[in-house]
């Protein structure tokens, strides 16, 4: 009797397994379809696309669209390609991510280990900043940037992204540090370490997982930002704005293959960050959520 039931159980599980995997493969294919279309079309000459073979593999394989998108395409008035804008994006993203992560870490450290009167209020206010829609702050932000004399510049955009990022990074680090006993800081105090020494020598070295989370989150958001870039960048536009200018231009022939290549170029860095640090991302999120 037990044999029979066991047998049935095994057979059912095999069947279910096939069903589940089939479904998963189907969905994966569905989600990967756009990427497939992008990659395939970025590797063929324009004539092949306009003749209506969007889904087919290229008959003539070419990297020319990529070269075009990177260094030759007409963006705005100059035929510079996306390269200078890619550099702009890097110049914005790297300091913005670095500064907002460090400030978030210090905030989290203070809010959990050096608690003071009204700290929950401050944390609440910081959390609140996560929920403010971008559009609302555009005009006040423009005024502030103007007053500071950094309107239309890369430092201005860095400031905007840092200010917007601090809410999230503080939340991450606060929740992460809350799990570590305050006794750790007290022990270090007795050992003779001061505020910053404890931060550098003890708190930061144990912050690996949450730093990955913070960096991925900030990198993705800042890199993908379009609104702030379009509003505040002036001449030094980030990648997203340039890509829009490339794709949306209404004069001349629409070079779909170049557009596809440009779009992939714009998405590549975030993709890379996810692939390199992705598994730490989940781990870090879990670590932070053990205790609130």
């Amino acid at each position: 009797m037990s044999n029979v039931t066991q047998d049935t159980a095994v057979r059912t599980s095999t069947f279910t397994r096939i069903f589940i995997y089939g479904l998963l493969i189907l969905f994966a294919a569905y989600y990967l379809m756009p990427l497939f279309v992008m990659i395939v079309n970025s590797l063929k000459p324009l004539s092949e696309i306009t003749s209506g073979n969007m889904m087919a593999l290229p008959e003539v394989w070419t990297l020319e669209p990529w070269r075009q998108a990177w260094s030759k395409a007409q963006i705005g008035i100059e035929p510079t390609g996306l390269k200078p804008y890619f550099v702009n994006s890097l110049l914005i993203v790297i300091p913005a991510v670095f500064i907002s992560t460090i400030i978030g870490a210090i905030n989290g450290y203070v809010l959990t280990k050096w608690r003071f009167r009204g700290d929950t209020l401050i944390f609440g206010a910081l959390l609140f900043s996560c929920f403010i829609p971008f559009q609302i702050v555009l005009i006040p932000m423009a005024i502030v940037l103007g007053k500071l004399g950094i309107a239309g510049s890369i430092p201005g955009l860095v400031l905007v992204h840092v200010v917007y990022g601090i809410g999230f990074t503080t939340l991450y680090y606060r929740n992460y540090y809350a799990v570590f006993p305050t006794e750790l800081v007290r022990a270090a105090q007795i050992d003779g370490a001061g505020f910053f020494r404890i931060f550098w020598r003890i708190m930061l070295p144990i912050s690996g997982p949450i730093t990955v989370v913070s960096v991925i989150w900030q990198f993705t958001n800042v890199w993908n930002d379009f609104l702030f870039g379009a509003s505040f960048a002036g001449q030094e536009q980030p990648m997203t704005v340039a890509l829009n200018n490339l794709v949306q231009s209404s004069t001349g022939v629409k070079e779909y293959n170049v557009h596809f290549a440009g779009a992939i170029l714009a998405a590549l860095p975030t993709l890379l960050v996810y692939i390199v640090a992705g598994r730490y991302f989940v781990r870090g999120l879990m670590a932070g959520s053990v205790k609130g």
Partner: protein
Amino acid sequence: MSFLNIKNATKAYGDVEVLHKIDIAVEEGEFLVLVGPSGCGKSTLLNMIAGLEEISSGEISIKGKTMNGVHPSKRNIAMVFQSYALYPNMTVAKNITFGLEMHNVPKSECASALADVAKLLQIEPLLDRRPGQLSGGQRQRVAMGRALVRNPDVFLFDEPLSNLDAKLRVDMRTEIKRLHEKLKTTMVYVTHDQIEAMTLSTRIAVMFQGYVQQLGTPKQIYDTPSNLYVATFMGSPSMNLLPVDVVDGTDGSQFELKVGEQSTKTVELKGQRLPAGRYTLGLRPEHITDPESADLESCEYLTIESVVEVVEPAGADTFVTTKLQGISVNTRMRGDIEVVTGEVTEFSIDLRRLHFFDPKTELRVELEKVGG
């Protein structure tokens, strides 16, 4: 002046006072245990000695120097925490020498101090590991090593054994005691476990609701508890409390003790008296025992017959519950005794070990000698 002097120390958070005018003087080499239930202020007091919490009023001094406002690292103290608080990113060796490094001690001195401590605590094979790779007992040792290496004036322990399992806790307790006997350093130890307090200390401060209820040697605390709180907190199972009406007798005071449901027995306090009135009588379980275990020769036992309610064999002892004054009382008999629930058996009460408390003030009332 004492080595560690706590004078009138008060701690208040806003309007709420959590420690009220604490006065404790600790001599050099003493092992003082602060014991009490959670929330009694014992850890706060320890943190005030460490400098991790400010003193609202009063004074704490070490070696005659006022410590109010002095940074924890400048007090020459060391502390072992309940969670061990080992730095998770550093090796055991680094954990131990971190404090020395912060105090700019030369590398060679650090190394020799580390070697000494590692040998003393037998943690030499662990020095390259990280705290995450250690067992609870090993972490405990490393935490003690970190405290020892500083060669402090005062050691502070904040419930260091609470996170260990029962067997390891007893082993580490012995080890701490041995360490104290070897080093003769002044130690202040916080615990909620009265057995730890009794076994480790040279003196105990029993704390409750922000007051020191009694300060004394373990023997003083156990044999002459100054109030009902101390009497019931120290000792396990805890002291039995019975209401009694004391009247004047022919030779000293006496009172009636109701045994079981019907019979009563007169207890005479031969040669000793109390002002007549109602008292709370305190009787420790081990002072109500079987006649064979009692030293009847001294003739200060009262033997009664009473019905056994519950029998709890505990190996070395058997705890037997019976009824006195209509209240269930715990008694302690020898381990191999054969008593049966529901049957009558003999109990001997040690009349030299009666404790009387005023039921209103809950303070201890001492017996007076008649004609003395």
